[in-house]
């Protein structure tokens, strides 16, 4: 499957991945409205990890044997057997945070307002995930990798 790969040596820690992820997961898909006027607030599913001079972006790695799927108490987290994507159904999510407890990447975001988890969905419907498409220095690439 195609996955998002982080290249630490290219990352400047600018945070544009977070901005574009937030926008891509907003209702309006408009950067200004997404940040200024949408309620509930859209949430970035990618996180910039910074410990200067080191920085890189982390989002769900869509693990082959995903611990979040096994641990999920509600059945909200599933592994799509066809696409390989780890999907999250927020209508089923009970906000128990068990996936947060087990994710080795710390990639699951707590939407405290919605009491559910938010995670990378690889921007279904877009040609390329928004974080990858808008990274100014190719620190995020979307490519085919072995599962």
């Amino acid at each position, binding site marked *: 499957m195609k996955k998002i790969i982080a290249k630490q040596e290219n990352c400047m820690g600018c945070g544009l991945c977070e901005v574009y992820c937030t926008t891509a997961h907003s209702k309006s898909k408009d950067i200004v409205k997404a940040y200024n006027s949408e309620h509930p607030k859209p949430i970035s599913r990618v996180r910039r990890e910074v*410990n200067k001079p080191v920085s890189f972006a982390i989002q769900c790695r869509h693990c082959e044997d995903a611990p979040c799927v*096994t641990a999920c*108490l509600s059945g909200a987290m599933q592994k799509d057997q066809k696409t390989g994507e780890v999907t999250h159904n927020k*209508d089923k999510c009970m906000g128990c945070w068990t996936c947060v407890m*087990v994710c080795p990447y710390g990639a699951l975001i707590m939407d405290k307002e919605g009491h559910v988890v938010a995670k990378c969905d690889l921007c279904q419907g877009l040609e390329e995930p928004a974080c990858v498409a808008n990274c100014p220095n190719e620190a995020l690439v979307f490519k085919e990798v072995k599962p």
Partner: protein
Amino acid sequence: MAKYVIVGASAAGIAAVEAIRKADPAGSITVITEEACAHYSRPMISDLVSGKADTQKMKCKTDDFWKINNAEPRLNKKAVSLNLTEKTVSLDDGEKVVYEKLLLATGGKPFVPKMEGQEKDGVFTFTNISDAQRLAAKIDSIQAKSAVVIGAGLIGISVTEALIKRGLKVTVVELQEKILSLLLDAIGSDIVEVVIRKAGVNFATGQSVQKIIGRPENDGAVGGVILTKGDQVPCDLVIVAIGVIPRTELVVGSAVKINRGIVVDNFMQTNVPDVYASGDVAEAFDFILNQNRLLPLWPLAVLEGRVAGYNMAGTKTSYEGGTNMSSLKYFGIPIVSIGMANPKPDDTTLEILVKQDQEHIVYKKLVLKNNVIVGITLVNCIDRAGILFNLMKDHINVKKFKQDLLRDDFGWAVLPATLQRKMGVIQ
């Protein structure tokens, strides 16, 4: 055609079905359950009471789960006895189901201590969907205003939150001096207790219920409780949420070895050939205590059931082990507790790292042994808890960066590049 028979259709039973089907596309699978719905999330029963979830949302698998996996659920059937020589399971309707490989995933049943008046109308346990449905119906039918919850552990706190959301006044009675004592130390427990009290909950700790009393107009219905220290608490409902004990009835007196739960090896096999056990009924491996023990937790039941399923279908798979690990969402204060939460203070082999921020109600504690994490407590700051959990699970030596583990900005970036690469965080 191997005949796989599974008794119990909750976390372990369902996970076993999936594993068997992956390893053996053809063998027949029969799952026996006394419940009417066989694929729902038990941890969600408190959401059913609060009204946050309905029975549809509670389903942890789609309704075509059984069809997809070509497995036959036998709903509303109770397995009443076992013949290990004939290799049969007898059901309450007299039928005998023949097995070649058997999985006992019978789970746990609520522990209810002897109390005078426990037979009164309005006393509930709280482990499965029918308990929750009966409780919710009772709240409506008698317009319940107050409840006493016995037990301030995971189940007790979860049902307490649901009752508060329904507008009831709740008193929680706990035998230990501190609430959530299996998950938190005294500091953590106090922090959480303050938050829950603010939501209107009363706690009576260090005591239990000696007697459930009736109503003046109807002695058969719950009217209150008398605590062991003598206080009387009026209430309309009593919910017993002390904990669960393994449902070993089927194998008691048989050749299957039982300690507190059914004894299994790392392949989830019992001492009797072709008989496996998983989930709350089994004593599986704890990788922190380095011994097998009861750990009645949903995610572990899934892992154990999966291992059992693979092995039953001939794909040799070893259980990696689990430990006491819980994530709590209740009363708006998220908590993660893994491994040793509250070790004895005089244990000199342990190193304890603590960070507390009273203003933000944040408490973090790590317990290390020989520079390996063996205990994690996070109160109101559980973000990225999984990174710590995996350092623990993989027995990573944290000596060189242990001062970074409790940083406010803790994340993969503060960990050594060698680890980042090993975990595939960066290329």
